[in-house]
């Protein structure tokens, strides 16, 4: 689960990491009030950033500087309500603009291959790290944290020396890098990223200019499996940005991703679901979704899955492919029959059920006059043909 920048910053701050102040505003008025506060406190400018979970908000015009109340109002007006990659901006983060001396990248991820938390640092901060990785892989320094001990001081120092962040900032960097991993461990995150981590110029209480290392942006992706033991984190889920279908899918514990095609798919198992999509494509069709109903699905779950598929107006045919193991074929068949009984619109459906209780399922489906298929290849072809017929008729 991705969380918003402001929430990510809050988690970093809870771990003791240095994050400059910020406010979240849901209206132009709130944004202006927040901006006025920072400007009155002595900030020469404020930054106003769209809070969306998709990347590329900067390029899309979702990040603006403002040097006055009026500029802040203009910027907030421009950003709130804009659309970034299909997501409507409903809130902005407002904070004092930083006087940046140098930017770095610092991120921690769960690396499958090495089975380690890998911490990465680069002297090229503030830019897309994939770009850096492609252009100059040696510009990214990596340290694998010990699975039981976390990141050691010496590893953090090695990263610091690697990116040339030594001298007076060495100690700060060590604390931040270790805190990054602690943030990951304490919140069951898959990814914690600070980009940019920056040396900024600030004025201390005596009015002297001082430099310190701070997190100017933050990105955290939480492990869904860890959420049950962090009830507070579930509250950070941003329903504003979620498709109603995603919310429905989550409620029913379905793994669902909407796609652009016309063939709705319902399958048990992620690998088989992807294979089903591949075969739809191979038969000349386009899948409308990825949908894994998981193992042991009961009739009500099948019915919910069917509602999700039918809620997509693009869907012109449905392919159900179930290989029963834990999942019982007759349960699935009953769910399908139940769902069709109450559905609003007629969509051709091809059903293939094999494995556990496939015979009972077959009998039920025949009685209910469902179109069936024996093999996956056959099912895919029939579904594509059915969609074409509908599409042609439409």
């Amino acid at each position: 689960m991705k969380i918003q920048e402001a929430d990510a910053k809050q988690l970093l701050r809870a771990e003791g990491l240095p994050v400059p102040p910020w406010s979240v505003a849901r209206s132009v008025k709130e944004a202006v009030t927040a901006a006025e506060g920072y400007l009155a406190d002595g900030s020469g400018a404020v930054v106003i950033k769209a809070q969306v979970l998709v990347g590329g908000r900067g390029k899309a015009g979702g990040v603006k500087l403002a040097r006055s109340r009026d500029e802040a109002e203009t910027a907030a007006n421009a950003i709130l309500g804009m659309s970034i990659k299909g997501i409507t901006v409903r809130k902005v983060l407002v904070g004092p603009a930083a006087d940046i001396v140098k930017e770095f990248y610092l991120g921690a991820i769960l690396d499958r291959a090495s089975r380690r938390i890998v911490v990465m640092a680069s002297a090229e901060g503030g830019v897309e790290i994939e770009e850096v990785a492609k252009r100059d892989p040696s510009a990214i320094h990596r340290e694998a944290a010990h699975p039981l001990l976390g990141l050691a001081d010496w590893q953090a120092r090695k990263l610091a020396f690697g990116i040339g962040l030594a001298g007076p900032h060495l100690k700060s960097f060590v604390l931040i890098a270790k805190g990054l991993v602690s943030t990951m461990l304490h919140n069951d995150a898959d990814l914690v990223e600070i980009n940019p981590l920056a040396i900024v110029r600030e004025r201390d209480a005596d009015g002297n200019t001082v430099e310190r290392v701070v997190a100017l942006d933050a990105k955290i992706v939480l492990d869904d499996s860890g959420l049950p033991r962090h009830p507070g984190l579930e509250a950070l889920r941003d329903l504003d940005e979620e498709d109603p279908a995603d919310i429905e899918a989550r409620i029913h514990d379905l793994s669902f991703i909407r796609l652009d095609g016309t063939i709705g798919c319902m399958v048990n198992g992620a690998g088989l679901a992807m294979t089903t999509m591949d075969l739809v494509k191979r038969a000349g069709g386009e899948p409308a979704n990825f949908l894994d109903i998981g193992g042991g699905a009961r009739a009500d779950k099948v019915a919910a899955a069917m509602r999700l598929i039918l809620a997509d107006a693009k869907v012109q045919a449905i392919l159900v492919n179930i290989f029963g193991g834990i999942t019982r074929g007759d349960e699935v068949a009953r769910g399908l029959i139940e769902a069709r009984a109450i559905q609003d619109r007629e969509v051709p459906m091809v059903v293939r059920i094999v494995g556990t209780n496939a015979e009972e399922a077959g009998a039920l489906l025949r009685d209910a006059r469902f179109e069936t298929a024996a093999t996956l290849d056959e099912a895919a072809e029939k579904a594509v043909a059915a969609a074409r017929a509908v599409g042609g008729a439409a």
Partner: protein
Amino acid sequence: MSILVGRETRLVVHGITGREGEFHAQQMQDYGTNIVAGVTPGKGGQRALHGTVPVFDTVAQAIHATGANTSVLYVPAAAAPDSILEAVTEGVKTVFCITEGIPALDMLRVVEVVREYGARLVGPNCPGATSPGRAKVGIIPGSIHREGSVGVVSRSGTLTYEAVQAMTDAGIGQSTCIGIGGDPIIGTNHTDVLKLFAEDPETDAIVLIGEIGGSAEEDAAAWAAEHMADVPKVAFIAGRTAPEGKRMGHAGAIISGGSGTAAAKVTALENAGFLVAETPTEIPALLRRAGVS
């Protein structure tokens, strides 16, 4: 012979008194698996599966009383890491974790300790393994198998069933079929299983089933190219048409170093001498073409 599970398997079922555990334990016993014990803390002294299997409070008691050497877990996600560690620390050498939904950072710690103890963990979130005619451990339907000499390894559950059923329907039997699970952190990967198959005198060919994401299939291909040059090898990769970037974050994409696409995996496998199927149903024909009789 076979790998990981077989006639020598003496299985202890963790969570045997739960709904899932009891159901699948019965299936395994019906298949002929030698279930010697169950473990449910607090229910020691009871008997499960119609009185045929003693239940213990601890793994230590189960091993002491029955000589159990293999564990399979049907316990909740919150309890599974502890159960895996109990099993390996007490001396179980092979552990299958069927449980899904275990936080990845828990598994990070668990696999580290499993390694320390020199044990093998398959999973979590995996369907288990079956050596047809000998034993099945996990949840793979027993009916799809046929005894034979093709080793099957897969990240998926039902996709594996599909492939195995196709082989069985075509008269091609299996030595052992293993689902390793698709979670971010797993105990045994494709390469680990290939190494076991390479040592197994009764495995004459292999089928590798993979998915997009990560680099496990590429790594396995590289290993097989070097160590299994003369073994017939067939593969299938799911997700050729799946849209990219639906799960991976920035840093993940970097780590995987550009690999992870279906195309990259297919190329790597083909370069390593695998015949790569376009659909699971093609697998039997490719096995024949690769020399399997």
